[in-house]
């Protein structure tokens, strides 16, 4: 009985601590950023001027950049992550499986600055020469590809983010996939399903885990800082095409924070950006939860 009680007290203690930290972060975000919202109101969100010399700040370009890069990232990463999960738990021979998984896990835990450097020196020039330039030259009439690309831009950042979040999303999906009761698989094969049909059934069974994994990955893509700051171009303009250089909120914070204290309103402005990022994350998580629930009830 006694140990039961201690366990409960400890549990409450930890839950309380975690909650306090989260609430503390939210409170400090809101209070620190309040001066910028008081001074500029919604103009802060909907203007595209970032001029520290004149102490005027607007983060619309960075906000759009965050949304665009993470959309690109998640649309590329979704099929890749699911395929990787299926491949590593279904197709690859048993003895290579753990090696493959640990490589993928290692990739998920690599510091993002390494991805950033690789993205800047290797990925960006390759994408530029073999994908973006041809796309622009032949399909430039489509508004999405209308800008003559430089190696670092929103598209490069999106692709790099996709590469970064694939192992992360796939490891969540893989865990769920391998946790599916074996009976289900046996049953599927026993009624004569092909491998492809079996996999499809299994994936249907873990739909909610797939959603969860992808939403977590999306959250990571939105918050990713160093790697994006290195390849996104860092220009505060409203993007007109995928190949425009841009900014994301988190890379803006990373770039500007070291000297922000030298200005009156830059610290609040950067915290304001963080607050908005936090709100977006919240909305995405809520939408994600809603979808997961819906899927769970249906399935």
């Amino acid at each position, binding site marked *: 009985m006694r140990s039961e009680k201690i366990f409960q007290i400890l549990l409450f203690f930890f839950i309380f601590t975690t909650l306090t930290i989260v609430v503390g972060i939210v409170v400090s975000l809101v209070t620190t950023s309040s001066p910028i919202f008081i001074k500029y109101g919604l103009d802060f969100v909907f203007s595209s001027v970032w001029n520290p*010399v004149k102490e005027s700040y607007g983060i619309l370009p960075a906000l759009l950049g965050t949304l665009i890069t993470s959309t690109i990232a998640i649309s590329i990463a979704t099929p890749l992550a699911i395929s990787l999960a299926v491949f590593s738990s279904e197709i690859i021979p048993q003895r290579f499986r753990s090696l493959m998984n640990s490589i993928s896990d290692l990739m998920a835990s690599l510091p993002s600055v390494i991805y950033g450097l690789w993205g800047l020196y290797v990925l960006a020039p390759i994408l530029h020469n073999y994908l973006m330039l041809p796309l622009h030259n032949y399909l430039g009439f489509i508004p999405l590809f209308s800008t003559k690309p430089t190696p670092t831009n929103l598209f490069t950042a999106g692709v790099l983010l996709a590469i970064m979040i694939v192992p992360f999303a796939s490891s969540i999906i893989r865990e769920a996939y391998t946790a599916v009761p074996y009976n289900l698989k046996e049953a599927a094969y026993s009624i004569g399903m092909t491998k492809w049909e079996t996999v499809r059934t299994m994936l249907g069974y873990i739909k909610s885990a797939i959603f969860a994994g992808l939403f977590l990955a999306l959250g990571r893509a939105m918050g990713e800082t160093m790697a994006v*700051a290195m390849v996104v171009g*860092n220009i505060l303009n409203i993007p007109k095409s995928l190949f425009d250089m841009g900014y994301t909120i988190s*890379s803006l914070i990373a*770039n500007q924070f*070291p*000297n922000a*204290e030298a200005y009156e309103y830059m610290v609040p402005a950067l915290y304001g950006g963080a607050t908005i990022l936090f709100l977006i994350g919240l909305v995405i998580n809520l939408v994600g939860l809603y979808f997961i629930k819906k899927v769970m009830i249906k399935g």
Partner: protein
Amino acid sequence: MKTGKILILATVVIIVVIGLLLFSGLLAPATTSVTETKTEIKTTSVYIGTINGAGASFLNPQMQAWASKFYELTKGRISVNYQSIGSGAGQSNFREGLIDFAGSDPPLKKDIYNEFQAKGGIIQFPVIVGTVVVVHNIPNVESEKLKLTGEVVARMYLGEIMYWDDPRIKELNPELNLPHEKIIAVHRSDGSGTTRVFTAYLSKVLEDWKEKVGSDFTVQWPVDQLGNGVGGKGNEGVAAAIKQNQYSIGYVETAYAYQVGLKIALIKNRDEQYVLPTDKSIRSALTALTKILPKAHEDWSSIFPDETVDPPGLDSYPLTSFSFIILKQEYKDPVKVAILKEFFEWVLTEGQKKENIVPGYDPLPPEVAEIGLEGLKLLR
């Protein structure tokens, strides 16, 4: 999973070992242990302790070298910690009393200086010389061949000069075959002292720039609005952007340009000569500057860098600048005062000798070092 665990464990072990080695200084960049000459410092004091500083990242490699050399010289009696967190953050930590000294590219702003003046005073003095170069990536033009004026560079970043074959550039370079290609103007995307110095120079040489853009750690680059600007994070980001974008122009710290092998442009100085950052041209600039530099306890904000860029002198290199150390005049702990004095006196004398200067930096001439030495006398 077993293989996975072993792999991860192995990685962790390797990282920890490397970390420990670095920490213990075994792998640290061989800090002049070769030049173990008998430069035994004459110390009258026998204080033992640690001082903590933080700030400008530009200063970091040199500070680390000084700190470890000094640690060696005092046989471990005094250790100096310096964290590279950026000039702004360093100044703010210093204001809050979290650190004993701040390293900063620009000196304190006027209002912060006044705030300190009311609270017992501060001193700020240059410790090292740094220069900024204009670099380019025009494939058929060699390094140190392209000639530019500050005004032309300013107009490129304003977006007024958009092509390399613009008559205003051709006029300066009649012997070069400049192509009709768009100029991509690369700049720092993070707030930096380098940008502060560069934009101060552009403001000084072109009234238009001063009015439209101004000078600061970060400015709103007009060329970005035209879609011809690229922002790079840090010197390495700018260097990569220049290498990857043909027909680009940019600015970086000189040491970095040489390390990475960027093509350097000649800049016309105030006396109409085209110059590169050489020992001679830096020396000439510093000599011209000595006359206008304030004392350590005075306000520097109106002088540096707005007045110090583009100094007169036939050989003077226009983009010459300093990094500063900022100290309070009063410390509660007398031991701290003694240590700060001892360390920075060494930095301003022995520390400026060639063997103690990290490649890429330039030492202060004695008359500029004197500013700091005088200032240190105010410490109490």
